[in-house]
């Protein structure tokens, strides 16, 4: 745009320097601390609930050893707590799913939905974790990848070596790459396990590895096994599949495999339509030929 801002909304004229609306959940370090505190707080609530049930059961049994009240109250308390937690968590999980659906079209609305989830307690742990993961993705979309990295980092610290670790590492790598921090992305990708990944994680890993290799200019690595990588990349969502194909094509072109490059570029265009730059690094000049 030659340095000029394209104005499409008349209200922009009234507020020429209007900043984008602030996210509803804190940013930066504060976000990471709040993620940690929130997950920790949930754990404390659960421990308190468990302890109070045990204490009340003890009091009831000791105080009214022969009473039907004592007998009936213990299961009733357990079932009651379970019902409350399940109901609140189910509603929250629906909101997270709604936010995921909204994210593509309206990231701000998605974040508002997630803000409601963050206020709800008590939640089962996986629902809150999923909400934070979604928030990190929304932040990447809104151009705040540093926030996303902070959130992913905080979630990783809580997840330890659990089964969610690969997904969170990929989220961290994506955030780092989007922020232009290739070293951070390298560390996150390097910590990924090589075996036993679920297919969605393998696909994300492939897309991010190709992006990372292109970002650091290792086109020989991008072109390595490009055909095999393309056959896996075709399972990604169309835009991401096309972007990955375009990078593989550029890698092949730079390594002198012109036929392979042309084939990959044609696939990219068939999968997602023509794009002016395909998100290639500046100056790469890779343009697919028309299909």
């Amino acid at each position, binding site marked *: 745009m030659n340095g000029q801002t394209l104005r499409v909304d008349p209200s922009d004229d009234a507020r020429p320097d209007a900043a984008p609306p602030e996210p509803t959940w804190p940013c930066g370090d504060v976000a990471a601390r709040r993620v940690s505190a929130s997950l920790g707080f949930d754990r404390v609530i659960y421990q308190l609930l468990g302890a109070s049930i045990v204490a009340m059961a003890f009091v009831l049994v000791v105080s009214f050893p*022969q009473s039907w009240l*004592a007998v009936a109250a213990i299961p009733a308390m357990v079932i009651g707590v379970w019902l409350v937690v399940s109901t609140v968590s189910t509603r929250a999980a629906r909101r997270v799913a709604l936010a995921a659906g909204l994210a593509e079209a309206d990231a701000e609305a998605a974040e508002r939905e997630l803000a409601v989830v963050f206020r709800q307690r008590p939640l089962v742990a996986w629902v809150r974790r999923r909400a934070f993961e979604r928030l990190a993705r929304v932040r990447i979309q809104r151009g705040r990848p540093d926030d996303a990295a902070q959130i992913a980092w905080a979630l990783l610290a809580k997840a330890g070596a659990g089964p969610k670790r690969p997904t969170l590492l990929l989220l961290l790598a994506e955030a780092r790459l989007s922020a232009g921090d290739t070293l951070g992305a390298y560390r996150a990708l390097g910590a990924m396990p090589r075996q036993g990944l679920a297919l969605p994680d393998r696909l994300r890993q492939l897309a991010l590895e190709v992006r990372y290799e292109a970002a650091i200019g290792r086109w020989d690595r991008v072109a390595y096994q490009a055909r095999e990588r393309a056959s896996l990349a075709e399972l990604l969502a169309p835009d991401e599949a096309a972007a990955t194909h375009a990078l593989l094509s550029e890698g092949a072109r730079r390594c002198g495999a012109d036929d392979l490059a042309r084939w990959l570029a044609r696939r990219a265009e068939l*999968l997602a339509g023509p794009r002016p730059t395909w998100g290639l690094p500046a100056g790469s000049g890779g343009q697919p030929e028309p299909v």
Partner: protein
Amino acid sequence: MTEAPAPSYRPPTVDEVERLLSSRRPTPGVAPWARWVVIAGVGVVVLSLLLSMIDAGEAAALLPVAAVLIAAIGLRLRANRERAAHDAVNAAHELSALRRSREALAEAWRLWPSGAASPSRRRQLLAIMAQSLEEIGAWEQALRVLDELLETLPAPSPPELMLRLRRASVLVWTEQLTDVDDELRSARPRLGAERANLGWALYRQAELLRDAATGHADRVEALGAPLIEELRPLGVDAAVGYAAAAVCLARLADADQKRQDAPAPARPSAMLDPDRPAAERLWAMARDWWRRACDLAPEAPLVARVPQGDRWLPGLASREAAA
């Protein structure tokens, strides 16, 4: 994209599929395990009350605690079993996504007895089986599984519409062409005006497959580049549609060429339309579509996925080489 069946491989027969599907039916209402949990819970509470009435001492007080503990352990074990079953179905789904159709089918077949009682898992397994059978080219069997899958979906609904359109494509292979027309005609009003979606893509693909099978391909030559846009939502599976377009155009070109080569009195005047592309141009268009198809998917399985593909598509490739 698709798996060419090896000579030694024999897909299950329609009867075997039928027997498998009818061997397990989804459990209506509350699952048996949930019923037993409720019955056991009520039983324990009633027993505890009785014990407290007859002054049974500590036993009455401890019984509900023990019951809650046992229920918690039982639910935990149940959750673990559910997670294992979920992981197994996911693994089969991954095989199917990676086009390892025979393995995916075998895995879904193996999981059926334990998984088919749960409605959601039943749907997943049926979807995997249908996809795998289509890839293998076991069309009758795929049709049977698609019919079973259709019964599990609410109608009318978008997933049901998508499935009907997929079914229409399979019907082309079982030569039930009137049913194909009926399916397409009933689906058309439900597709909406916006064309860049999966529904339209499936519709167009089914139409192309039908046209490739019947040879009524006159419309295909007018489709041109918009066909790419229409089939794009299918991802690499659009290759089947492109290959079908190539077959249609090849058949059209061949017919045109035969007419042109025929002695003048044998040519009806209606066939000498000056606006109509010449045979060579039709061949060139067919080659373009075939090249696009081959850009997205390997050649051999594609030939097997398009009616008349074995007759027209390999010839097209050699024609291209000659050109």
